[in-house]
């Protein structure tokens, strides 16, 4: 009893609310609370390539360009650059040059790497450190050399940049530079100073200007200039972290990014929490003054022109399980949250018209729902190398077309995705140039346009196509046996059974038997790589908002089984490939649209994919979070957010009042249940010996 009282006193010392997971010292402070599920693997801009990691590094690092926060379709605007660079063709189009001018006066976050004495630390000093920020801190101005240094780092022999292969095709001399660096880097114990080695395609013009020279044309290069791969890295930081003993303490550039952005990573504990603090050297940036027409009504332009960032600190806590994450969001301890399948019905109500709205419970708490059709596609592919479903024969094409009609993606979205998605009619997601809308955007093979909306073609049409393919009633005329197809998938959990049954049911509509081959991710990848799959499912999220980044998934030279490309269906159509080569170098224009239309028509006709769906992301935010507009491309969105602190504090107090009476009741029940035991004990102790 005494222990329980002490515990209650201990908890009551936590203030008005007892269940606050954050320190009392943070209450009332201008802090944004977020979460992360997976441990980040890389925070080095050369290697980092996932959304989980970008929520940290994109607040710290600043590439030359960024996406406009409010405008749609997505538009590139300068970040540290003075303007969005224009490509300049040289040698009659043999090369393209981008000249990037950065603004003078931009300063790095405080960092020990900028203090000369920290570059030669004794081993004991390193050993005693708990954070690199315990050392004296310095700063310096951002210069063009820092951008050049980072471009060279893409070919660093000790690092793994996922875009080295791609950039070696385009940046002049990058491939040779990579080979040269491998030869130079003999002594791994020594720091490799990339400043001593020239990269032909990257040139310093002056303190604030540099040029990148590309082979041929590559209009999409400008999008890469908005990604962390092209952020500046000061050589001092690399040298600082290369000192002996640093890696042993987990002090590496891969874990402690350094930048000029609005925030700096001040606490790095990927097991529990990551903390971003306002960068005191940040120059300030005005909040956008333009947006979409509906942004004014949504209050998204209320802070127009005000200096960002608005939030002082961002605390990300690791939350591996969805149940505690959701409950903490409802308690007000996370400011924003996504919606898991388990919580969907509690959070969202879908009207008869199909519109998603927050439930009454959410509305009562002032929670707002935002939706965004993501620049992503989940597709179900046929392996074009497969003797049954693959190839360019009339038989195989009609078989694929029949299956494409039979697989009812509308039903799939309704049953398994809570309606969170849009049926795909081509590889290009909404919001990206090249995608047609309305009747023009419908895949005529699988859908018809009736009464002003798309409708899936009846199953009879699929059966007819199947018969024309030589499988009347889904049977192989040679053997008389039902056509048997194989679906390779990584779905192996108990929850996946209904999904796989649904797949069997879709093909059963055509009397085709579907055998599901469940496998782990590694084996699945192996099958895709060797081209031994038949039907399979995969997804692709955009690197940048350009049709090229989706249409290349069907580009013949990138067939996966013939190399290491992303064309997992191994689709090869010389006409499509020729158009792709033409399209990828064209600026967005009516002519480019015509080329894209022709490519999409080919892909629909040949049907190497069942064009699955584009997922719709649902996110919730509390009433105290302002300036939150979903943006699929910009990762540096924290600086735009604003928090109404008094409102959050009041809501947390109201929602989290401790309820003590049940504890008292439980204690009483425990005491009451002890009474028979005490009475029994006394009775026994007083009992006289019984006669034998």
């Amino acid at each position: 009893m005494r222990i329980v009282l002490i515990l209650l006193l201990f908890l009551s010392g936590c203030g008005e609310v007892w269940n606050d997971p954050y320190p009392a010292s943070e209450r009332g402070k201008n802090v944004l609370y977020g979460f992360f599920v997976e441990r980040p693997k890389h925070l080095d801009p050369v290697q980092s390539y996932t959304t989980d990691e970008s929520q940290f590094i994109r607040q710290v690092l600043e590439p030359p360009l960024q996406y406009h926060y409010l405008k749609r379709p997505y538009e590139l605007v300068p970040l540290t650059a003075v303007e969005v660079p224009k490509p300049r063709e040289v040698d009659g189009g043999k090369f393209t040059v981008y000249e990037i001018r950065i603004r003078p006066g931009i300063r790095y976050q405080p960092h020990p790497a900028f203090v000369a004495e920290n570059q030669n630390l004794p081993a004991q000093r390193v050993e005693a450190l708990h954070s690199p920020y315990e050392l004296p801190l310095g700063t310096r101005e951002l210069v063009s050399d820092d951008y050049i240094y980072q471009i060279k780092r893409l070919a660093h022999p000790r690092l793994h940049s996922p875009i080295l292969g791609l950039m070696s095709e385009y940046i002049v001399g990058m491939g040779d530079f990579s080979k040269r660096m491998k030869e130079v880097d003999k002594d791994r114990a020594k720091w490799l100073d990339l400043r001593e080695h020239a990269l032909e395609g990257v040139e310093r013009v002056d303190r604030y200007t540099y040029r990148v020279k590309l082979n041929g044309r590559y209009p999409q290069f400008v999008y890469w200039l908005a990604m962390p791969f092209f952020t500046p890295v000061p050589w001092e930081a690399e040298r600082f972290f290369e000192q002996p003993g640093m890696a042993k303490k987990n002090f590496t550039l891969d874990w402690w990014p350094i930048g000029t952005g609005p925030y700096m990573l001040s606490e790095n504990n990927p097991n529990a929490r990551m903390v971003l603090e306002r960068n005191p050297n940040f120059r300030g940036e005005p909040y956008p003054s333009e947006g979409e027409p509906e942004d004014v009504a949504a209050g998204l332009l209320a802070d127009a022109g005000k200096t960002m960032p608005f939030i002082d600190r961002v605390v990300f806590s690791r939350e591996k399980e969805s149940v505690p994450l959701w409950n903490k969001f409802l308690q007000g301890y996370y400011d924003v949250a996504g919606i898991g399948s388990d919580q969907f019905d509690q959070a969202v109500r879908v009207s008869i018209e199909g519109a998603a709205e927050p439930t009454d419970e959410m509305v009562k708490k002032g929670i707002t729902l935002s939706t965004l059709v993501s620049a992503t596609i989940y597709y179900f592919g046929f392996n074009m190398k497969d003797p049954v479903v693959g190839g360019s024969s009339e038989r195989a094409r009609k078989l694929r077309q029949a299956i494409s009609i039979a697989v009812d993606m509308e039903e799939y979205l309704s049953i398994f995705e809570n309606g969170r998605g849009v049926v795909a009619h081509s590889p290009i997601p909404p919001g990206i140039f090249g995608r047609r809308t309305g009747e023009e955007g419908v895949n005529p093979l699988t859908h018809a346009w009736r009464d002003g909306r798309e409708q899936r073609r009846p199953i009879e049409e699929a059966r007819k196509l199947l018969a024309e393919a030589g499988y009347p009633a889904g049977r192989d005329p040679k053997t008389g046996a039902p056509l048997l197809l194989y679906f390779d998938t990584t779905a192996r959990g108990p929850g996946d059974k209904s999904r796989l049954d649904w797949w069997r049911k879709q093909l059963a509509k055509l009397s085709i038997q579907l055998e599901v081959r469940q496998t782990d991710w590694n084996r699945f990848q192996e099958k895709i790589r060797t081209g031994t799959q038949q039907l399979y499912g995969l997804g692709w999220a955009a690197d940048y908002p350009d049709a090229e980044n989706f249409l290349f998934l069907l580009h013949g030279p990138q067939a996966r089984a013939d190399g290491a490309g992303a064309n997992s269906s191994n689709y090869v159509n010389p006409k499509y490939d020729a158009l792709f080569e033409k399209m990828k170098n064209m600026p967005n224009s009516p002519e480019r649209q015509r080329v894209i239309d022709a490519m999409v028509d080919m892909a629909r006709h040949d049907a190497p994919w069942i064009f699955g769906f584009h997922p719709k992301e649902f996110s919730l935010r509390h009433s105290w979070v302002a300036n939150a507009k979903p943006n699929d491309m910009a990762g540096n969105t924290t600086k735009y957010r604003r928090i109404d602190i008094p409102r959050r504090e009041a809501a947390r107090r109201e929602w989290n009042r401790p309820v003590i009476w049940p504890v008292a009741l439980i204690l009483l029940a425990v005491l009451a249940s002890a009474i028979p035991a005490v009475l029994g004990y006394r009775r026994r102790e007083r009992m006289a010996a019984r006669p034998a």
Partner: protein
Amino acid sequence: MLAYILRRVLYAIPILIGVNLITFALFFIVNTPNDMARMHLGVKRVTPEAIEKWKQERGYDRPLLWNEKSAGVKRLTDTIFFEKSMKLFAFDFGPAEDRRDIGEEIGARMGPSLALAMPVFLVGLAVNITFALMMAFFRATYLDFWGVVLCVAMMSISTLFYIIGGQYVAAKLWNLVPISGYDGGLDAGRFVILPVLIGVVSGIGSGSRWYRTIFLEEMGRDYVRTARAKGLAESVVLFRHVLKNAMIPILTGAVVVIPLLFMGSLLTESFFGIPGLGSYTIDAIQAQDFAVVRSMVFIGSVLYIAGLLLTDLSYTLVDPRIRFD
């Protein structure tokens, strides 16, 4: 005694080599070094060259167990198994596949694991023994009957239910403690109260039934009959004689798990966001991080062997008849 300990330590070496070999075989039956590289490099824009480079940097470009291309003893030593496993015996765990130092990680995560596991163990032991003694004291009465029924009911409920239910009721409905999270120092207390309580309550069913069986077995022995014949009170018989003599089976179960407390709890740590060694192991398995998996299995084996040795040594403390000389 010293000779006995030395002999046990020497026995441990082939056991640890065997455990390493089994871990190695199991891991590489499921994952090839190519799979590991792909898992760590991601799925977008991964070239065969990048995979080869990744393997080369981490020494996974060698043969697994036997190197035909080498000569002499190098056929055995110039292999992934030898290179990765032998350093473990010097407790040199090296870096994880994501290049974070494993030793540093283990050091940082041991505290949170112990903050959770130690109170669960100690309080759980005390509660289970008390409850079991009570049932033994009231044996063959309705209190004993309903106690056993309660134990069976509690044993039948999944740990996951205790966790989710506990979080919902105590942290969400009554707002008494944080749902999840962790902080160092004294502040850790408010984060571990609920998981400790859940750990103790969920273990009462099986623990109490086990100890009750032990106590009842002891209570049927001659020395208990003699004690009662002397006219000793039942409570004295129970606490002074039965409890003391039941300590050997209790110690067998309890002491062996003490070193393993360092290893943390897989499920509880995940749900309560406690950054301990349990969640470290789970993360490593999911990420196919062989460096961490083999280190954690090795530490687990060492601690288990240490636990067994401690159990044997503890017998000498509770039973004067047992001597190792």
